[in-house]
């Protein structure tokens, strides 16, 4: 049983991690494409439309992969976690079904219209369809984050006689305070993925001296929206999420920070490796009293360490939790630094003459994907050993009759298939980027080539 549990957890972890590469990009790009379309409608300048069309292609590839890798997620609640689904389906089935009925239909209908219907719809309706796509994908994000938020912080339910969870307040479920913070934090992360992707492609075009006008637009939009998102990511949303944890998931907070002993004026660890058996942080680099201040706004406040909680309530992989949290926060800080510098130079009109910053923007492309993934690992590993925090242990939720062998079989199947999908995705996106934006790509490419030859 223990063996099967591990495989089922790995199964979900792998498929959801791979899946989330795509929604974070499409949710971010959906906002940016909507902004590009709005600017096109407002200025009447075709370059904004050309930009939107270019990003719509990358959006389309990512969206398709997001959809096909998303379907297994909804199925897995039943296939691999049937005991959990049976008990909690009456509550989280609400948000999952609403996601299907409200947002998936909205997204997919208007994506079809957006990709296929520019000529049939005309500029105004085409703009509307970009807005609907944006709304659909962001609504979808809300409902799925709420589903997770209920597992992190269950609200609006009571336990029935047969042990299943019954909803007793729809609005409590829908306005779960944990969910509101988590949603804001998640979406800002997705926006940064979109912004960095757009800015990185723009920087690449400027540095490689092709599609320069588009490159400048991409960098400008990416950096401008990105710096706003990066700041809001830290405060208030990151801070709000942290306070939620301080209130409801104290063992998790202590493990994230690598705080083994309870202390007044607790420090924040910047670096260091948790040594769980010895219950200490090796090679620590800390800021004294900072954790107390951030958590309770008092430099001398006492923060509970892991020693305050029985080991049975400790997250079961403290090292992974500690590192993923630190990677997320570290990268988030780097994003603020890069984007703030880039925004400053953009404001002064010097960004496009600053190769170092452009290089930094270009090379940052993979980082927001890593940061978002690390953030979700923090949330989900942090929830352990609970499936529903404080209520249901992870081991209690697994499908009792699906053997480790069956789970291995399908896990390997997904590993193989997703490896190939990942390679295809990179190949196709690379092709679109090489192909470049513009009204007529072939002639534009030819013009660039001729210009290059003339140089």
């Amino acid at each position: 049983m223990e063996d099967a549990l591990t495989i089922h957890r790995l199964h979900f972890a792998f498929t959801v991690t791979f899946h989330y590469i795509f929604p974070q990009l499409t949710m971010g790009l959906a906002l940016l494409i909507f902004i590009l379309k709005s600017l096109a409608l407002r200025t009447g300048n075709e370059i904004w439309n050309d930009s939107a069309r270019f990003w719509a292609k990358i959006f389309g590839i990512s969206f398709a992969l997001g959809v096909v890798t998303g379907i297994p997620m909804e199925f897995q609640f039943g296939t691999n976690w049937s005991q959990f689904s049976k008990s909690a389906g009456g509550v989280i089935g609400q948000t999952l079904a609403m996601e299907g009925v409200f947002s998936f239909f909205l997204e997919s209908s208007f994506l079809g219209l957006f990709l296929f219907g520019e000529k049939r719809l005309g500029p105004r309706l085409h703009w509307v369809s970009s807005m609907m796509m944006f709304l659909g994908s962001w609504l979808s994000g809300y409902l799925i984050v709420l589903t997770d938020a209920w597992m992190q912080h269950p609200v609006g339910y009571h336990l029935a006689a047969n042990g299943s969870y019954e909803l007793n307040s729809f609005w409590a479920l829908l306005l779960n305070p944990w969910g509101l913070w988590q949603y804001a934090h998640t979406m800002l992360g997705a926006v940064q993925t979109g912004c960095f992707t757009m800015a990185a492609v723009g920087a690449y075009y400027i540095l490689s001296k092709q599609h320069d006008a588009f490159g400048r637009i991409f960098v400008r939009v990416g950096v401008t929206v990105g710096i706003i998102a990066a700041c809001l990511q830290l405060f208030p949303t990151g801070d709000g999420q942290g306070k939620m944890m301080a209130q409801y998931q104290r063992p998790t907070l202590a493990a994230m920070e690598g705080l083994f002993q309870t202390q007044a004026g607790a420090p924040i660890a910047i670096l260091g490796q948790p040594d769980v058996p010895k219950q200490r942080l090796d090679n620590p680099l800390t800021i004294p009293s900072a954790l107390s201040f951030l958590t309770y706004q008092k430099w001398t406040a006492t923060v509970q360490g892991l020693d305050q909680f029985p080991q049975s309530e400790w997250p079961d992989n403290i090292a992974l939790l500690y590192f993923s949290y630190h990677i997320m926060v570290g990268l988030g800080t780097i994003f603020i630094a890069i984007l703030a510098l880039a925004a400053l130079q953009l404001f002064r009109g010097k960004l496009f003459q600053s190769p170092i910053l452009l290089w930094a923007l270009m090379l940052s492309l993979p980082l927001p994907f890593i940061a978002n993934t690390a953030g979700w690992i923090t949330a989900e590993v942090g929830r352990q050993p609970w499936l529903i925090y404080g209520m249901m242990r992870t081991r209690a939720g697994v499908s009792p009759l699906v053997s480790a062998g069956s789970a291995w079989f399908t896990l390997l199947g997904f590993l193989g298939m997703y490896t190939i999908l990942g390679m295809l995705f990179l190949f196709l996106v690379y092709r679109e980027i090489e192909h470049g934006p513009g009204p007529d790509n072939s002639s534009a490419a030819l013009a660039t080539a001729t210009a290059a030859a003339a140089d």
Partner: protein
Amino acid sequence: MGTIWFCLVAIMIAGYVVLDGFDIGVGILHLYLARTDDERRVLIRSIGPVWDANEVWLLAAGGTLYFAFPALYAASFSGFYLPLMMVLWLLILRGVSLEFRSHVGGHIWSVFWDAVFSLASILLAIFFGAALGNVARGVPLNAAGNFFEPLWTNFQPTGQTGILDWYTTLIGVTALAVLALHGAAWLTWRTTDDLRDRAHAAASLLWWLVAALTIIVTFTSFRLMPFGLLSFRVHPFGFIFPMLAIAGLLAVKLFLRTGQEAAAFAASCAYIVGMLTSVTFTLYPNVLPATTGLANNLTVANAKAADYGLKIGLVWWLIGMTLVAIYTTFTYTRFAGKIRPSDPDDHASY
């Protein structure tokens, strides 16, 4: 409240089969009907703007099932673990082949994705049919409401059953024929010239196959599951469902002959809805019959979620599905009309 949601889930599933059914049908016939690259692009363009939304019906139906009947969702999804995972892989392959096919020019690339698209569509139709066969036949539920079926055992529909036995395979083949006919009717309606004529000829031929299989399936089903007739005896109004199927099937033939293409497609929809509702009607009040004794049957009453949630759900479901109806209608009217090879591509990559 349970019965209302039983009907709503049935509607969602029927909606899925009717809508995604025609684009799966197009996939089944893809390699056979469309001979040149231009024709294949027309075929794919006929479903391009809608297949994704059609597939959402599966997600929405799954979500609705999850929320309204958690115990059924948990039992069936974990019990049908292996075939469902394969369905997922097929859906992935089918989705990416549609999306990727047109991104790279070049013969080898598109030939490969065409084959993947068609093969995945064929297998999906068979798997979905076999799944329906399993639900109708019943599964070895234990007292805790769980089961696990291997892919096959000795191919007998009694005793230690597997996902595939001769009965469920028969239903799978029937589903393949029905969806192929459905796809052919769609293409007859939406394409022109040679392609339309070939689709029309295929539809006329497939009709005979579907008619024969319908008769065989009906008789074997009642032979294996004689209690299915009981529902009709208790609620005679239920005859309306098989009548709808028969009328739909006959109308398909009639309209194909008179060349009323849209009507033929609509009749094919009616036939599918009639067949599915007949099956669900004979199941009621069971949602998943057990082969291990009546006491283990999952029923509307013992599988449903609590009433409070179901009542709230009714409100948002009605609002949500009204919206869905509005934008589905909008999409289909925007993309109405025949698709010609000479039409300009709106979307550069298709």
